[in-house]
């Protein structure tokens, strides 16, 4: 973009500046300046801003002071006992100093930074520069991680000092610091995502309190885990179960952190942008990764039936939660996006495509695990019931997601059609369907968990289908009932699909 010769008027001074002429002097830039040009502009700005805040210097000063005092206490305490094992306690004490900043101050500052950006309307100015929501968010997260690194650099020598106090192994220290780092990144992403959730003043106040609460809990959890690891790290780290739990934890942090990041970017995108591509792509990747991991477990466990049951149920629950947000997107999409949208462009904006993608994933997920369950070697008495459960659970999810869409978007009035309204309708529909049949059963004097009355009950129904009658060695329910639930779910899903097609047509009318 070129700039013309400009004439100053406001201050009354004449300025003549041909920007093109400046290009010639680019070669004379220092390495630092050239490197700075490559950095995300948000990182430069946020770090500059962050280092000027009172919060940074107060936290930095207090943290350093606390560490110094602790180090002095440790020195005095261990001076007489050269071979005593005090490392564990002091390491944990130093880590607490860092944890306050890393697991509370940094994520909360990241949250406030983005929230203020939205409250002060500076967000739109950033968007108009062409940086794009993803790059802006990456800049935000990175800048706070840079600040976190500055804090860590101050506490690092003290942590190392605790190693020389004996009693804590290097692997334990590395495990705590590694997990702590991952937790810091995850919490910062969660906080940034939370800042995008609410638009109204009330909503923002509510989210603010939730964030404070969640960060408080996250801080406590971090202390609990790091305390356990520093206390009996060697024993825990030699346990395969702990390795597995750590691996699963890190995997979940990575995948869910990625999903939340994409959700935040999507919420900050303009309606003319392809704002759903990111979250929907992550949703599919999550399911594929879970499938690969599940297959690995299944193979490792000699094709055990239990693995298929666990993965089928957990995956369906995950899809139900994520799918609720995907299917409740607004109807239609901006004109700029329509030309490139085909019938299978399921990542593109619009509730219709979100709904179809979620349905496909639910059916696909159920199909894969049902097939694996059929070929599984190890079965037990309850296997038949669990197969039924694996079949009906996605059906319940499909049924209630579709029902909420039909209730919210079938009427011509837009009163209940907003994304938030449809989500509330989903919760209400599930609540009513779960509570009403047992209540009716109690009133008419039959068993509250009656299988037929609770056939479409998403809680008792699932429990009934999963139950196995050990007295008769038969499953609690029959396959025709499974077929009935699946049939109803598909019928309502078809209705929802037609409703969304109709609404998209209406939204695209000139």
């Amino acid at each position, binding site marked *: *973009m*070129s*700039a*013309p010769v*400009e*004439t*100053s*008027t*406001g*201050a*009354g*001074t004449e*300025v003549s*500046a041909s*920007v093109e*002429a*400046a*290009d010639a*002097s*680019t070669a*004379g*830039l220092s390495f630092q*300046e*050239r490197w700075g*040009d490559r950095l995300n*502009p*948000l990182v*430069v*700005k946020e770090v*500059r*801003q962050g280092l*000027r*805040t009172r919060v940074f210097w107060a936290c930095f000063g207090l943290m350093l002071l606390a560490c110094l005092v602790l180090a002095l206490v440790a020195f005095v305490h261990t001076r007489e006992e050269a071979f005593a094992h005090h490392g564990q306690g002091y390491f944990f004490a130093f880590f607490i100093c860092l944890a306050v900043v890393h697991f509370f101050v940094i994520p909360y500052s990241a949250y406030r930074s983005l929230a203020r950006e939205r409250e*002060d*309307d*500076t967000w*739109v*100015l*950033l*968007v*108009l*520069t*062409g*940086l794009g929501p993803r790059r802006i968010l990456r800049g935000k997260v990175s800048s706070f991680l840079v600040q976190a690194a500055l804090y860590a650099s101050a506490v690092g020598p003290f942590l190392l000092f605790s190693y020389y106090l004996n009693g804590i192994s290097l692997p334990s220290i590395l495990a705590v610091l590694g997990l702590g780092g991952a937790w810091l990144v995850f919490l910062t992403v969660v906080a940034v995502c939370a800042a995008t959730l609410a638009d109204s003043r009330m909503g923002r106040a509510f989210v603010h309190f939730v964030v404070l609460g969640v960060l408080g809990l996250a801080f406590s959890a971090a202390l609990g885990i790091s305390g356990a690891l520093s206390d009996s790290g060697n024993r825990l780290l030699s346990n395969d179960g702990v390795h597995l739990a750590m691996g699963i934890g890190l995997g979940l942090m990575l995948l869910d952190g990625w999903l939340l990041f994409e959700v935040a970017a999507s919420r900050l995108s*303009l*309606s*003319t942008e392809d704002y759903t591509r990111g979250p929907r792509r992550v949703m599919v990747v999550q399911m594929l990764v879970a499938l690969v991991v599940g297959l690995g477990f299944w193979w490792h466990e000699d094709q055990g039936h239990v693995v298929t049951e666990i993965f089928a149920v957990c995956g369906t629950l995950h899809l139900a939660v994520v799918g609720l947000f995907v299917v409740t997107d607004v109807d239609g999409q*901006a*004109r*700029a996006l329509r*030309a490139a949208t085909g019938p299978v462009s399921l990542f593109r904006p619009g509730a219709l495509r979100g709904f179809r993608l979620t349905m496909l994933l639910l059916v696909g997920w159920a199909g894969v695990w049902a097939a694996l369950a059929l070929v599984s070697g190890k079965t037990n008495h309850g296997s038949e019931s669990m197969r039924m459960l694996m079949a009906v659970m996605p059906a319940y999810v499909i049924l209630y997601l579709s029902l909420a869409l039909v209730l919210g978007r079938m009427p011509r009035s*837009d009163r209940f059609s907003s994304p938030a309204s449809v989500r509330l309708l989903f919760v209400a529909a599930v609540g009513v369907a779960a509570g009403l049949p047992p209540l009716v059963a109690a009133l008419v004097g039959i068993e509250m968990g009656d299988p037929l009355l609770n056939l479409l009950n998403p809680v008792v129904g699932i429990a009934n289908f999963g139950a196995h009658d050990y007295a008769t060695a038969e499953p609690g329910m029959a396959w025709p009932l499974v077929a009935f639930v699946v049939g109803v779910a598909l019928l309502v899903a078809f209705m929802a699909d037609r409703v969304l097609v109709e609404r998209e047509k209406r939204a695209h009318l*000139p």
Partner: protein
Amino acid sequence: MSPLLEVKGLRRDYGALRAVDDVSFHLEPGSILGFIGPNGAGKSTTLRILATLDSPTAGEVLLGGHSLVDTPDRVRPLIGYMPDRYGTYDDVTVFEFLDFFARAYGLTGAKRRQRVESVMGFTGLGPLADKLTTALSKGMRQRVALGRTLLHDPQLLLLDEPADGLDPRARIELRELLRALADQGKAVIISSHILTELAEICDTCAIIEQGRLLATGRVEDILRQGASVAAVELMVRLAVGAEADAAWARAERLLLEQPRVARVSREGESLRVGLELEAGAGAGQVDAAAAGLLSALVTAGLPVCSFGMRERNLEDAFMTVTKGRLA
């Protein structure tokens, strides 16, 4: 000259609410358009659509021949948007603020530095480069915001209520800056509900109310619209204290009962009266109508201290065009 911006049949619905309804206008390079309307008239919504921050329900916007609706990414670099809130950051200096946005616009190295210095010179911010933005006056913060808008050398400037809250001096300086920008060939759209300032800055204006464009064209043409209404300003000495409101109401009622009086509005101790005349009425007829009104008021016992004809301005044109139906 071919128009830089063409807006055709723009419409924006929010559910059942139609915020912008069939708005059409065009703008040539180097001209300044005043977008006039009361709060909630649809000015900011239209500007947000023109800034590519929102998409219209229907209609077309062409900027430099490219559709803003179909290819927003392509036209965005041509637009400089300044929202009604200045949008500056705490704990950054003026230079750092502009430098940050210059980086965000993709300017690098010496080119970036040169551009920031050029913009600071143009807006008169040079001496304040190292000051924190929070330490600046409102007028200076507004200059910083304008400077940010100019960093990427846009062809179309969209300024939403730029003079809101500025003191008279800052307003005059803003006017000079905008005129200089127009002289450089940039097209400028300014939305405002402070009509007096717009008449002095703008070449053309568009009056919008309840989402509909009621009048558009050169300021002189707009002023001529509804010229069959003459404005009279009179000052009356009325009772003070508890009875003041009732006395003012009586005076207004009395005025409205007079022939040719179309509307009455109170401004402090003065009353502004609109006299309705036949189309194409000459100066003699205007004088006769004013004299008749004065005579009637004196006869009715209204204590008139001063009485005079007032030159017609954009505010009168606005009231005529909108028929006083303020939202």
